[in-house]
């Protein structure tokens, strides 16, 4: 037998050997005690997107909702976060491990979890799942989507920017040119134009999908903001996750106005030194949504289907920290009134 043939035989039989080994070993779940419902307090599992707790933005907001539920409703929690460049299977494992450990409901933070949630939810029809920021026509009935009307909050941010600009020139920085961030852009532009159609709006996206680094690259955010400042913009709204902190830094250095996103960024320790230049933040109340969802589940009346949190339901709002937008409160209230009454329809695509 030639050496190469032997080698091939060894590799083949070896791989089959490992495969058969996998087929007959014990499953990891065999030993764990899968405690189901009825064991006292509610067990809530939470799977974060990349960044997890401490991203100063989207994930942190979800974490606040979970902390509130823990404090006020006495639920038991378990958390895990995604890591960069992980496989789809890792997300599925994360969710099914939470299922096995007896967590129900399970909340997935971010649209990247959509395929994994669908798959695991189909395999576990008795477990309730929630997914933030995403919905699909094919998701099973035990999946609840928690979505937000980002365009409505961004519209208000646009109104605020238009009222504060001195150069009649404002800017928008999007993290990744995804469907989600386009909603921010559309709302912001509509808000600006509603005040004064002659105001110029600069638009910069840091990256295009599938490159999602635009959400966590403060360097890129800073560069983009500098570019817009050089062109003459004096109020810049950045919807770019943690890249936004770079943009805020650049804007603060230039002494202009920045608008934050997702959380009230003027209140964040990491950005505290720039808080005098953060006009407001378009807050996405993920915490409210998470808390509402957990509370409903605890009360035995779970939310189902697609639950959209709009301006009316306090799903999105403008932060007032610093009091910089107090002088235009009347104008903002009027715009809010227009939207909640349905008189103004905010576009979702630019």
């Amino acid at each position, binding site marked *: 037998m030639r050496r190469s043939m032997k080698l091939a035989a060894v590799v083949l039989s070896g791989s089959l050997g490992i495969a058969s080994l996998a*087929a007959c070993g014990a499953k*990891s779940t065999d030993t764990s005690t899968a405690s189901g419902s009825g064991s006292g307090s509610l067990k809530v599992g939470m799977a974060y997107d990349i960044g997890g707790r401490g991203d100063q933005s989207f994930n942190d907001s979800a974490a606040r909702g979970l902390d509130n539920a823990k404090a006020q409703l006495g639920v038991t929690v378990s958390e895990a976060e995604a890591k960069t460049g992980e496989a789809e299977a890792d997300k599925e494992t994360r969710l099914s491990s939470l299922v096995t450990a007896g967590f129900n409901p399970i909340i997935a933070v971010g649209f990247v979890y959509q395929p994994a949630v669908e798959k695991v939810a189909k395999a576990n029809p008795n477990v309730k799942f929630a997914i933030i920021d995403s919905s699909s026509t094919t998701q099973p009935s035990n999946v609840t989507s928690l979505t937000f009307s980002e365009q409505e909050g961004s519209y208000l941010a646009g109104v605020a920017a238009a009222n504060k600009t001195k150069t009649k020139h404002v800017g928008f920085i999007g993290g990744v040119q*995804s469907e989600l961030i386009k909603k921010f852009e559309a709302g912001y532009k509509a808000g600006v134009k509603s005040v004064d159609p002659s105001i110029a709006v600069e638009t910069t996206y840091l990256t295009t999908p599938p*490159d999602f680094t635009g959400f966590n690259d403060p360097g890129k955010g800073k560069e983009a903001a500098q570019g817009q400042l050089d062109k003459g913009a004096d109020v810049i709204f950045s919807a770019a996750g943690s890249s936004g902190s770079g943009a805020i830094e650049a804007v603060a250095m230039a002494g202009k106005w920045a608008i934050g996103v997702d959380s009230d960024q003027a209140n964040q320790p990491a950005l505290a030194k720039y808080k005098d230049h953060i006009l407001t933040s378009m807050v996405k109340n993920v915490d409210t949504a998470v808390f509402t969802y957990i509370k409903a589940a605890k009360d035995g009346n779970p939310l189902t289907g697609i639950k959209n949190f709009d301006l009316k339901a306090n799903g999105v709002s403008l932060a007032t920290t610093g009091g910089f937008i107090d002088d235009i409160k009347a104008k903002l209230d009027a715009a809010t009134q227009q939207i909640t009454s349905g008189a103004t329809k905010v576009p979702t695509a630019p």
Partner: protein
Amino acid sequence: MTSPNPAKRTLAQRFDTERIALGLAAPLLAVLLSVVICSILLLTSGRDPFKAFNVMFTYGTASDGQVLILNRATTYYLAAVAAAFGFRMNLFNIGVEGQYRIAALFAAYVGAQLNLPSFIQIPLLLITAMLAGGIWASIAGVLKVYRGVSEVISTIMLNAISLAVVGLLLVPGIFAPKVSSTSNSVQTDPISASSHFFSINTAGGVLWGFIVVAVIVGVGFQLTLSRTRFGFDLRATGRSESAAAASGVNVKKMVLTSMAVSGALAGLIGMPDLLQNSYNYGTSFQQGLGFTGIAIALLGRNSPIGIVFSALLFAFMDVTAVQLPLQGDFPQEIVQVMQGTIVICVVVAYELVRRYGLKRQQQKVGAELAAQAAAAAKKEVTA
């Protein structure tokens, strides 16, 4: 086989135990060192390292963990072979990342458009992916041969360009459906059911049938290297380009071919996931496999067998890492630290072991020569 070959060495001679021990020493040393470093890191953050490794080991030996590891290793193996193919002739194809991305996009698109019988459809998709990957890689090959552009630079730049190309094509109305079924993500239509690759249902879950393709690729790689003129030329060019050119190897042709083959193999990387799991290419398709592949190829010393072990090791670490934060408060990033230190340590360890081996060899030869001289001197005295 039937002709007597007096020069043929015996089995024991060919499998020189010392050489094997030295070969294994370097990767084992690297793994051990990285375990020690990670243990220290865990200890300083106030966590019990043994418990963390226990969590990983327990999950890795359970059947569901094993199936996941094998599935992951399938992808990793293909990624590493794609990189190793170029490395064997000193051609540093850093662009595996971009090549598999482009390949997966085109294969997903073709798979969604066509619905042919499986025995035509699946090979067609594999060929599409390999062609796309190969053509994308050939850009760097052509630039190197005709313009002298270093392939390291051009492939890295092509990675960035591939992102832009995907961003340009993966939009509603071009490669993605006009009306998306999901609200915030973009992906191609699902590939037709006939494109689904076979899988094996085990007690631990679904084992991807693509492991067979990975084995075939591995065996093919080994046979090409050891049994073909092309493989010989490849290795010769890798050792010394000028010597190879002097002995009649067309180095330009070799560069073009191996770059294309490396890219074609890279095209297969996304296929297990596309044909067995996600069934579409979209914004949540796994990224970074190209770079993981380079690390695995380094650890496996670019050998088809070595890569099997390093791919299994990396798959084990990545799969079991997910359990770390869920079973005890361990940061899963520790696994990335471990992988990073393994790669650094292994480069150092290989060099140390090589020097040690060289020294031993010199000593051995020296001792033999001394013995011979002594014997000769003795003969003279007795004569």
